[in-house]
């Protein structure tokens, strides 16, 4: 029998606010355990939460970017469950009046366009972290993370393969990065993803019983866990076993999922309205301001790069794949109006030097420095090859291009006197090629130009060298 795979994803992202969601503690990671806390995020008796307006506005922003209907009146609820990393033993979350609902995200998978509906976007507080010292009979809790803002983005079960899920996550992450609301670093936990997956016989309307998968710490792991789960559920269905509704954890090493808890053990969260927080109301004007503050999103940018700037689709995909790169591209364009040339430099030499966690600025790559290098190559001051080594040197030392050219003597030689002696030498030392050329083999000329370049340590202007060579060879 053939089965249809049905996947829905719940994505949690840590919002990049200055302070935590309900208190004034800074929203920072890597501090010494339990030093970034206060009575509110520790849930001490008598303390009360106060809503972080920035976190709310970010949530609305994400909702709008995902095409959701934002709510003007937003409610917070308590999700009740006991766990030692949860200081109040309830989490402030949202139940039936979240920030945004009913949006969608269009993804392109293997050339096919798919619309993935977004069910809801809601804000909640993160929990602390449990630490289990090896061999100890106790556990420790670090509450630094407690109360930091988490945005949960829930999709409808509109994905049908691990590839769909992978692409959805990639596109969603890009949008969130464009909005500047989160680092979306899965390894650091600033983006987490739970996947709901079920199988049903092809053609059946009723959904199969789902499993919820947790503990995947990369998009690749999500893909692998889903692929594993498809195999597992398919085998079970084919053996006429009943699929149990359960939560399963992905084991990265064994590359398999295992059961964490069954439906019977699932919590009754006893949601009810958080009485300590009034409704969060957004005026039409505030909503409009947030809408106006939305940046151009990757999809629109891609379209503009292709249609207006005549960039190839292949290159445009690369350029918009990071907001920083696309921003740099456009900033360069302000100074030097050659989109294709800039794109080639960015996608080629520049990207070969970058790594994901170092900013362009830290690499001394500013629109000014970059366009300087490009224009030096274009006006013939330096060769293409020299341009690349200037770029490398610039990234390394931060020195201006002019200085590097001077220090390394990289300026291109177009002077006929200087070139003349080099050309004479090349003609004298390459008899065979000269003969070949004279015998009509045009290719031999390029070889000779190459020799001139080599003899001049790349400084010769190849165009001038070629012209001079042709002249001299006529006399031979």
């Amino acid at each position, binding site marked *: 029998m053939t089965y249809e795979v049905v996947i829905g994803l719940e994505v949690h992202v840590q919002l990049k606010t200055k302070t935590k969601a309900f208190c004034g503690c800074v929203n920072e990671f890597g501090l010494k355990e339990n030093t970034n806390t206060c*009575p509110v995020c*520790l*849930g*001490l*008796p*008598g*303390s*009360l*939460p*106060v*809503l972080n307006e920035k976190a709310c506005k970010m949530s609305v922003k994400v909702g709008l970017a995902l095409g959701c209907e934002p709510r003007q009146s937003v409610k917070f609820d*308590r999700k*009740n469950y*006991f766990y*030692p990393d949860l*200081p*109040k*033993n*309830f989490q402030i979350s949202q139940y039936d009046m979240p920030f945004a609902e009913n949006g969608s995200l269009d993804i392109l998978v293997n050339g096919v366009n798919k619309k993935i509906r977004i069910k809801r976007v809601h804000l909640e507080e993160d929990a602390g972290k449990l630490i289990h010292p090896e061999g100890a009979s106790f556990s420790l*809790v670090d509450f630094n993370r407690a109360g930091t803002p988490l945005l949960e983005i829930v999709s409808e079960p509109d994905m049908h393969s691990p590839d769909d899920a992978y692409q959805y996550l990639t596109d969603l992450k890009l949008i969130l990065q464009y909005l500047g609301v989160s680092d979306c670093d899965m390894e650091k936990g600033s983006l987490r993803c739970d996947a709901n997956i079920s199988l049903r016989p092809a053609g059946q309307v009723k959904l199969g019983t789902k499993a919820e998968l947790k503990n995947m710490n990369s998009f690749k792991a999500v893909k692998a866990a889903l692929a594993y789960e498809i195999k597992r559920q398919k085998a079970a269905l084919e053996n006429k076993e009943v699929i149990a509704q359960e939560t399963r954890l992905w084991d990265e090493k064994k590359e398999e999922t295992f059961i964490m808890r069954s439906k019977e053990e699932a919590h*009754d969260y*006893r*949601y*009810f309205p958080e*009485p*300590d*927080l*009034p409704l969060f109301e957004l005026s039409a004007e505030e909503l409009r301001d947030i809408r106006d503050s939305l940046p151009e999103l990757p999809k629109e940018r891609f379209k503009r790069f292709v249609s207006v700037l005549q960039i190839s689709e292949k290159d445009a995909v690369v350029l918009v794949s990071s907001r920083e790169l696309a921003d740099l591209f456009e900033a360069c364009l302000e100074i030097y109006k050659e989109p294709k040339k800039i794109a080639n430099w960015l996608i080629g030499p520049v990207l070969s030097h970058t790594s994901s966690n170092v900013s362009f600025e830290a690499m001394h790559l500013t629109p000014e420095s970059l366009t300087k290098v490009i224009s030096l190559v274009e006006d013939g001051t330096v060769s293409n090859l020299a341009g690349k080594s200037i770029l490398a040197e610039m990234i390394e030392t931060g020195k201006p291009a002019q200085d590097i050219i001077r220090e390394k003597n990289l300026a291109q030689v177009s002077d006929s006197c200087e070139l003349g002696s080099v050309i004479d030498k090349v003609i004298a030392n390459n008899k065979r090629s000269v003969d070949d050329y004279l015998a009509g083999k045009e290719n031999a000329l390029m070889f000779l130009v190459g020799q001139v370049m080599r003899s001049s340590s790349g400084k010769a202007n190849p165009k001038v060298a070629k012209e001079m060579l042709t002249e001299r060879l006529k006399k031979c």
Partner: protein
Amino acid sequence: MKEKLNTLTAHELQGLLSAKKIDAAQIIADIEDRCRIVEPKVRAYARAPFFKNASNAGLGNSELSFIPAVIKDNICSDGDLTECCSRILEGFRPPYDATVVEKLKSSGSFIMAKANMDEFAFGSSCETSCFYPTRNPWNTDYVPGGSSGGAAASVAADEAIFSLGSDTGGSIRQPAALCGVVGLKPTYGRVSRYGLIAFASSLDQIGPLTKDVRDSALILKIIAGYDEKDATSANIPVPDYPALLAKDIKGMRVALPKEYFVEGMDPDVRKALIEAKNKLGSLGVTFAEVSLPHTEYAVAVYYIVATAEASSNLARFDGVQYGLRNVEVRNASEPPLISMYKETRGKGFGAEAKRRIILGTYVLSSGYYDAYYLRASKVRALIKEDFDKVFKDFDMILTPTSPTPAFKLGEKANDPLNMYLSDIYTISANLAGIPAISLPCGMTKNGLPIGMQILGKPFGEQDILRLAYHYEQNTAWHKNKPSL
């Protein structure tokens, strides 16, 4: 001075202090003397008072300079034991001051003692305290009411000048009535709840218990106001309540809800209320009977909403961070974490707390939420509408505070439903969020105080204080003192 300073009010002491007629140190000395005599009988305090704090008091020439405050054991004060009279909070010393405590301190006052209370404010008799019950200063066989029983008794017994209590369903007003003092529950949002250990967050308010109405106005003025640490506090200016007391009350329209004056009502209470009405009538106040048709549902609604919120608010008491932790293992096959939760909460909470946590957990459970919590929330809105309608035509509402005067210790302790009915007249104000004051208006044949309640419009504290003040000026009930 022939009068002992502990018997005076804050405004009287202030007058004497600024006229330099008394020495500030004498205030605390007189209170200390009084405590030595009466505290063993009354047991108003959760633990021994700390008179030494007096040395930190008296910031300049403020309204409460040198005047000690007693606060209920559920209001946090920096470094002081604050245990809600519950074993589960054993040893808990908050590292911060509640906003009301900050405000008292910056008005020159200081915290002299934490008052005994029903555990987590769950009760109407002060008998569910994990320490001991407080007794009614008028007759120590009787309860002082609750849950702010200690706060009320300390003021009534003159071992305090004033106190702060909290009121979720009548916990300031009912003990004030039973002890013969003035108790005010402000409008929801008038006083910051920051630092008040929550019972039911949507109902709780902190308010003063005082010897007269002027002190009530004075203390309210000091503790009221917007607080950025409490998102439910109202950003509405605080009137100068004491300055508004004397304004004439002629022509004030007062409603008498028929649902509050029913057959079988305690005859002493009925008689006192009729007399109070007549007295106010002689001062130019007009009365008319009205209906608050949803009153009969108030107790049911209250015990759903309040317990639901309490079950969640009290979840944090789990032995992880503070308070009691019991790691006794009774069932070795159980995960140790679960054992810790069970043993800690099992041992830490008293019977009434457990009863309410279970009730609240039940009404929020999946499958029951709509039938209980949601429906209760809807009826709550109807109860509020009842009041809104009456306040279109009337300035305030007059009712008894409690259906009966004080009852004997143990009389209702094993009858929770009967106990819950003690708050039948006070609960609605919390559900509707409106302000209400209780003040003495008579004595029973047995010599126990009777209280009347005045309910006002939201943020209309100045009106109910004014009516209460004029009544008080024309009666002498507040001058009665128990003989201890």
